[in-house]
């Protein structure tokens, strides 16, 4: 074909006649509609939409028409091609969706298969429980103090009003270091950390001291030569037993829930005077019909530890002015809390390193 045909003879260009264009369009639409899959649709596309398709060829003929005819014919062919393109797009979308659906179906897996390839690690429950307790104190504005486990005898005993001939000293079965006169022990409580704190800081002092301690107990279900304690110490002006009670109530509430408070019973510790044993309301039965309760064994109360007003003799040895400051101190076993809070029945589990035990506690408690 060459140059525009100026001699308009509609008869001469048959494919552009209206019925012909409609026929081409209908054929194309039918082929598209008939395509069952994306492959058939591609075939229909190349036959009816591609460069060599009748409508494409017809479109090319338009240029041969006289200008006055082009507009009408152009519109006719254009509409036909538009309809086909639209149908093609719609059909493509449908078939692609169907195809994807089939693919996804084919990709179905058994999601119940096991998936763990790497072991899950865990932190020791004593560590996480210590952290948890430390966080409660830190939230009150306290700080966490620490000290050595092999400790000077003076700090473990004498500075705490436990002189060499104090009967209470035999209550704590102590590991002594060689030689006998080295005056070093494995600390029997974390109280030497309190003494160190008083000796190195100015009041007001608000510290908690969690840590590992040692006593010469043979290993059994409830005893271990190595165990863990947290002690608290407050030295400030005007400190009373009421502050001690308030602190312990807050602690037990934070650890065991609303309504779990403490009570005091008179007791004796050389480093405190007055001294008390503290019990907390049983967090399982809450003291209501405790007879059946396995946690508190019918008591309604759980023994927590010892506490009291810091003995002024201790303040003197640790360089705190007993006329200006008073203080309180308390201590309890972390292992024991772990045991009753999480129903651990055998203390040996805590120290044997069986991963089945530790894994049960994950990374937070």
């Amino acid at each position, binding site marked *: 074909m060459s140059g525009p045909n100026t001699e308009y003879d509609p008869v001469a260009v048959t494919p552009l006649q209206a019925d012909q264009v409609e026929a081409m369009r209908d054929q194309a639409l039918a082929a598209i509609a008939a395509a069952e899959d994306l492959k058939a649709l591609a075939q229909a596309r190349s036959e009816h939409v591609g460069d060599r398709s009748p409508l494409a060829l017809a479109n090319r003929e338009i240029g041969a028409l006289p200008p006055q005819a082009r507009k009408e014919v152009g519109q006719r062919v254009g509409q036909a091609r538009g309809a086909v393109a639209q149908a093609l797009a719609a059909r493509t979308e449908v078939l692609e969706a169907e195809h994807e659906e089939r693919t996804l179906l084919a990709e179905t897996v058994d999601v119940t298969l096991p998936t763990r390839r*790497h*072991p899950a*690690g*865990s*932190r*020791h429950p*004593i560590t996480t429980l210590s952290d948890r307790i*430390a966080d409660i104190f*830190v939230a*009150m504005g*306290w*700080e966490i103090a620490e000290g*050595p*486990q*092999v400790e*000077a*005898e*003076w700090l473990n005993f*004498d*500075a705490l009003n436990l*002189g*060499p*001939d104090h*009967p209470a000293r*035999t209550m704590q079965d102590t*590991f002594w*270091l*060689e*030689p006998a006169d*080295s*005056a*070093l022990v*494995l600390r029997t409580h974390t109280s030497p950390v309190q003494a160190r704190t008083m*000796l190195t800081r100015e009041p007001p002092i608000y510290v908690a001291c969690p840590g590992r301690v040692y006593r*010469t107990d043979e290993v059994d279900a409830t005893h271990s030569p190595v165990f863990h304690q947290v002690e608290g110490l407050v030295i400030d002006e005007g400190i*009373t*037993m*009421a502050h001690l*009670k*308030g*602190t312990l*109530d*807050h602690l037990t509430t934070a650890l065991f829930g609303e309504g779990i408070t403490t009570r*005091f*019973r*008179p007791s*004796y510790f050389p480093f405190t*005077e*007055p001294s*008390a*044993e503290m019990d907390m309301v049983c967090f399982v039965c809450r003291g209501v019909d405790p007879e059946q309760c396995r946690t508190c064994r019918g008591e309604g109360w759980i023994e927590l530890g010892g506490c009291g007003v810091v003995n*002024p003799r201790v303040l*003197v*040895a640790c360089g705190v002015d007993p006329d200006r400051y008073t203080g309180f101190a308390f201590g309890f076993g972390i292992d024991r809390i772990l045991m009753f809070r999480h129903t651990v029945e055998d203390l040996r589990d*805590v*120290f044997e*390193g069986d991963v*089945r035990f*530790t*894994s049960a506690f994950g990374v937070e408690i």
Partner: protein
Amino acid sequence: MKAPVSWIREYAALPDDLGIDELTHRLTMLGLKLEALEAPGDAITGPLVLGRVISRQPEPQKNGKTINWCSVDVGDANGTGDPQGIVCGAHNFDVGDLVVVALPGAVLPGGFAIGARKTYGHLSAGMICSAAELGLGQDHSGIIVLPDEAGVPGVDARAVLGLDDPVIEFEINPDRAYALSLRGIAREAALGFSVPFHDPAERELPSPDDSGYPVQVEDPVGCPVFVARTVTGLDPAAQTPEWMVRRLTQVGMRPISLAVDVTNYVMMELGQPIHGYDRDRLSGAIGVRRAREGEQLTTLDGVRRDLDPGDLLITDDSGPIGLAGVMGGEDTEISPSTTAVVIEAACFEATSIFRTQRRHRLPSEASKRFERGVDPALAGAAADRVAALLAELGGATIEPGCTQVGTPPPAASITIDADLPARISGIDIDLDTTVGHLEAIGCRVSLEGDRLTAVAPTWRPDLTDPFDLVEEVVRIVGYDRVPAVLPTAPAGRGLTRTQRLRRRVGHVLAGNGLTEVISYPFCSESDFESLGIEPADVRRQTLRLENPLSAEEPLLATTLLPGLLRALARNTGRANADVGLFEVSPVFIPTGSEAAPLLPTDRRPTEQEWQQLQKAVPHQPLHLAAAISGDREAAGWWGAGRPATWADAVEVVRSVATSLGVELTVTRATLAPWHPGRCAEFRIGELVVGHAGELHPRVVRSWGIPARTAVVEVDLDLLMRHAVDPVGPRFSAYPVAKEDVALEVAEDVPAAQVEQALRDGAGELLESIRLFDVYRGDQVAAGHKSLAFALRFRAADRTLTESESAAARDAAVRIAGERFGAAQR
């Protein structure tokens, strides 16, 4: 300390309807903690009555035993009033004796049901009981024979035997020595219920004179008071009366003989330990002095003991005859034939008794009381009470003389601000209450302005300090009245940096799939040997326990590996070999030979003393150790598992260091217990922080753990000290230019050094470098390996041209070539 309720009631006028729970609770809240409650009668049901033996027919049996066929009058208790026929195996009774009979239908302790049954050819309708059968102690030797006045046949035997008398066992704190007696416990009970107290120590006493048994006290500090009384004409056959036997049994003492039982009884009653000497076995005056070098004494328990010059002794002309306040000697002991008794009631200094008791490992009922503090004014009354009982029960005559050496020291006088109890307890306590309560415990109280002076009673040697008075007032007011007030701490700074870092490390390790363990720090020389750690190794310099729990493990660990490998072996033994364990704990490094000073306690240590003390405490750095064994990744439907290797151990250290922002240098090292070719050493600069790698196969074998187990041990304190806080990175959004290079180097060239060379050569356009392959084989020369690195270049301000990145790559390769002769492949 055990106390029968009936005995408490003898001195404290408690209301008749006072329940046992109320009593024990009140005493617990006063500081006498309920330890246990015994009520033997609770275990007995059904008819248990008194009976009188009407006839007793001994019948020898074929088995060699002789039984007694008895007829026993049990009154109307059997419903008929007829005598009861009972077979009895015991022989310590006679016709006319009053005995205890369990009739058919009774159930004795242990669920032992009594019925009428055919035995030895008779129908035995019940049982004549021994003390043990009724749960009254251990005495199986014969049946109970009661004194005539105990009751008439047919009456319930429970009350007669005290079976309905609950016995409270108290846990007595060391400061309440006075409560190691019925006198003290009853005093507390009377105090608790505000009822009158009758003091059993209040007696009419003869004045001391010179005509008693001679006593010479050489050490009045060790023995401030010594009282001696003498009784003669004691009937050796006299029996301890049933009531005393019952009470001694109730408080847990074994009846022995009248003279011994009386001394024990008075100790329990008053709290004053008493010693009785057979006067006829004493030679000359009784003396009290310290032991001399080389002296020996055979104590009551038959042990010959070497005496220490610190031991306080009782002597006579023959030498030592007793460890004062601790245990008597064998030679002068009261025997079943003793008729004349010298009664010693003395007060010994607490510390001296404590030391002697500890030195000879001889805790006794006497030493327990003396080392806590005995009422120094009690000796006269106690000796008199013993003499009176021996006269009354044993037919003895009390000699007129009464020896007393020394006088009780004056009681402590304590002055406090009158409002101190209120100020310390936080309870609103008025002055009247304070004074009233102090007087109630026996103090003499006087007031002067705002100050209050209390003179402690003689039985309370524990009251010495102002705060002791506070405790007394507050415990009577009631600890339950202490209000709860949360103190306001000054704003805190949260956890310290080290505390935070330690948590971070724990999370990183757990996140890496490791499980934390806590092991005992005790270990042995053989632990080191089985780790292949040579005697010259610094880790063999350990601290040693004087009194280890196990003689096999006397050392404090300088490495966490023994504990960790024990835990690993335990897991392996429990069929769980695929584990990764870690521990973060201190190790114990001996640092000096100086002993820790024992400083005074009446003042703050001086700076110099404090430094000296600090220096004596061993270095205890926090270590991190890990052990990884078996499969690190499990086998499964996805394919094979991946066994743990040296690399997992090295990665533990790397990931911890990364989390702390610490840059470590890694080199290969040779160190036990690691595989000589598979041990990485980590350094910060020149400072070695630890090691990681595969264990030596010999170590694996001797510990019984899985082959190829890899372990880590690093000084975590050191790592944390070098931790660097993260700095926000700056990164470029321009495109990356990637360049891969493969370098052939000799086998012994460490990859890390080649990488460092590439880094040094690549210059600042280098964004990252990663070793992605190590190849050995046909394509490289023998003894060589090919290391393939992926380099990424990027500029902060522009898109790099190909020639720029190629130039940087070439520069990197050139440096590697210069340093290691690395050829690019």
